[in-house]
């Protein structure tokens, strides 16, 4: 049976008391938003019913998560992403909240007696606070089970811009991929779509993950992958299918724009392999009854090198928790292995 590495498991504090216990003053007494999204929460609840056990916040108990994922759902290894509390205007507070989550992640999850050896962690940093982020990264980068550094999808400034480069440089030097993930909670982020706030959750959910395209295209145009050849970026909310048409477009317009962006001298698609990765989730890939059918899923996955970029991720315990059984049956066994574990094993140095 093939190995399964779950590239996206979401980790929370048990509640606000739990979080505040991990914060020191003056941040312990600050006002901090909850995980729930006010305007864009999922109708019916954010989490799958079977992870909602009374007395625990979903995704806050390593015992429960370990049993459900590693024992019942056939996952061999899980990459954990702490969910934090929104794009906070006060970057100092945001860094303190991130640090509290990282501390909890390492002590409670990565060092868990039973399941710790099958958990790997993403340490969250705050791009608005580069100094704080570099310190936090330095603090955890050598922990044997820390495999990644995480930043929010939401931002006021695209991640190709130079204010973020010291963080990308440090991550690349530490050999840690950077995971970009939609932030929980609410703060001063812009409206989630280019036309302002959406009316439905369906639209919010459909669009939000695609915001990675703006980040990716900007990182390419700014020559980030040229300057930091060892940098790896994981777009952890899915949407990897969209990379194919967007890189086609980026390439088609690449040649005329070379004169404007000499720091990115190669064709944009040349910057994907070895640099860009996606978590593959519940709404990714051609559905069985969708346009084109599903027989072509294997051919589609090969295009633009996606089969080497995509990693299965459940997004447990969110309502869209994905299952390997839902992956397209038309994928070849080799493709399936790559997506289920091969690509993640290579990226996070988890070869067994």
């Amino acid at each position, binding site marked *: 049976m093939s190995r399964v590495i779950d590239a996206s498991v979401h980790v929370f504090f048990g509640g606000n008391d739990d979080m505040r216990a991990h914060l020191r003053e003056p941040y312990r007494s600050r006002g901090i938003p909850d995980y729930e999204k006010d305007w864009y929460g999922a109708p019916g609840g954010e989490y799958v019913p079977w992870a909602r056990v009374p007395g625990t916040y979903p995704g806050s108990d390593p015992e429960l998560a370990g049993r459900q994922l590693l024992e019942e759902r056939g996952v061999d290894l899980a990459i954990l992403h702490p969910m934090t509390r929104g794009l906070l205007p006060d970057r100092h507070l945001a860094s303190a909240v991130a640090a509290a989550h990282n501390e909890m992640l390492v002590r409670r999850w990565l060092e868990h007696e039973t399941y710790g050896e099958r958990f790997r962690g993403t340490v969250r940093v705050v791009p608005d606070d580069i100094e704080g982020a570099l310190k936090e990264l330095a603090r955890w980068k050598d922990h044997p089970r820390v495999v990644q550094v995480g930043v929010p999808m*939401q931002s006021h400034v695209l991640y190709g811009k130079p204010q973020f480069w010291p963080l990308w440089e440090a991550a690349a030097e530490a050999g840690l991929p950077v995971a970009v993930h939609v932030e929980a909670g609410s703060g001063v982020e812009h*409206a*989630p779509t280019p036309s*302002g706030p959406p009316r439905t959750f369906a639209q919010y*959910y*459909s669009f939000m993950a695609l915001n990675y395209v*703006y980040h990716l295209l900007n990182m390419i145009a700014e020559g980030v992958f040229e300057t930091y050849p060892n940098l790896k970026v994981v777009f952890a909310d899915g949407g990897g299918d969209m990379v194919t048409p967007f890189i086609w477009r980026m390439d088609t317009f690449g040649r005329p724009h070379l004169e404007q962006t000499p720091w990115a001298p190669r064709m944009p698609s040349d910057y994907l392999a070895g640099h860009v990765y996606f978590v593959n989730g*519940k709404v990714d890939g051609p559905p069985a009854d969708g346009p084109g059918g599903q027989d*072509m899923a294997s051919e589609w996955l090969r295009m633009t090198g996606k089969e080497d970029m995509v990693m299965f991720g459940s997004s447990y315990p969110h309502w869209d928790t994905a299952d390997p059984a839902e992956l397209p049956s038309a994928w070849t066994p080799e493709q399936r292995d790559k997506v289920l574990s091969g690509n993640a094993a290579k990226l996070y140095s988890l070869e067994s």
Partner: protein
Amino acid sequence: MEPRKVPVRVVDSDVHPVPRPGVIAQYVPEPIRSRYLLSHPRGETIFYDAPDYAHAKAMRVDAFTPDGGFPGSDPALAFRQLIVEAGSDIGILEPGGRGHHIPEVTSAYKHAMNVWQDKDWLDPVNNWHERWRGSICAAVEDPQGAAREIEEWAGHPYMAQVLINAEPRPAWGDPKYDPVWAAAVRHNLPVSCHLGRGLHEQLPMPPVGFPSSNHDFMVSYSLLAANQIMSMVFDGLFERFPTLKIVLVEHAFSWILPLMWRLDAVHRARKSDIPEIRRKPSEYIKDHVKFTTQPLDYPEDKLELTRAFEWMEADKILLFSSDYPHWTFDDPRWLVKHLPEGMRDAVMHLNGIETYATVPTHVTALDGKAFVY
């Protein structure tokens, strides 16, 4: 003797005429003309500049008129370069033009664009060949004004569609725009949606920061169109207006294939939130939305594009366009070679004839006109 008629082989869904300096002002009503249009000088407003902008102005450099006039400002030159030399049979004119943050002001500007088209491009002198069709420009952000404009021009012998900008917020599914769609469907006119590129709310306002260069800006613009589709589907626009036809112009199109998958999957997972959305998103899209071929994005391996065309049923959803005279112009003779043979008739002219009002199946033959396919 009757002039010789030939079948229309190429309907060009995106041609950009430009008014000569000072012309539009005549058609903007007072007091808006004095208070807004002529109130202060306005210079170049470009940021996100196309390559070599200072010289090329984001245009085909060979489309400037011999006396230095802006590309698209001379109907005769446009006729020669696009219809005769490149081979488009019918050109759907889509004027750009100014927008303003006050909706009623934009409405007045749009009205002026319609009067100008009628007088300077669709008139018997400049349209002697009957190859130009115009667009009823409407300010969607002023729904009542837009509906009035549509009522005024519907039935014009050469107006093929309604034209709105892609940027105004909120997205199209919001009920506030219903008067616009109602007017369009009342007259069986498709509504085309073109990029506007203005300031603030007339820019796509990417949620996660502004692109650094025209390169990442232009390419990411497609996400605006993707979002409009999401709103039209999930906000029930096509349930409220089951005969509405939408054309997304110059937003590229190959992204619609994975987008249809995504929306179908989201719809299946969230059906109980939105029970009024009865059909799969991909069904709404195939029935109601079309895309222009320009700019054609293609991978190095052209077979991948061919396969993508097949999977998305491109013959159902694509309309050929050139974007003459912009620098991103796609020549019809070049474009047609990239279409699978069995799809060429649909994309190059059948879909256009079916989608647009006033577009005929035959036109008067022209001597020396280029053969496209």
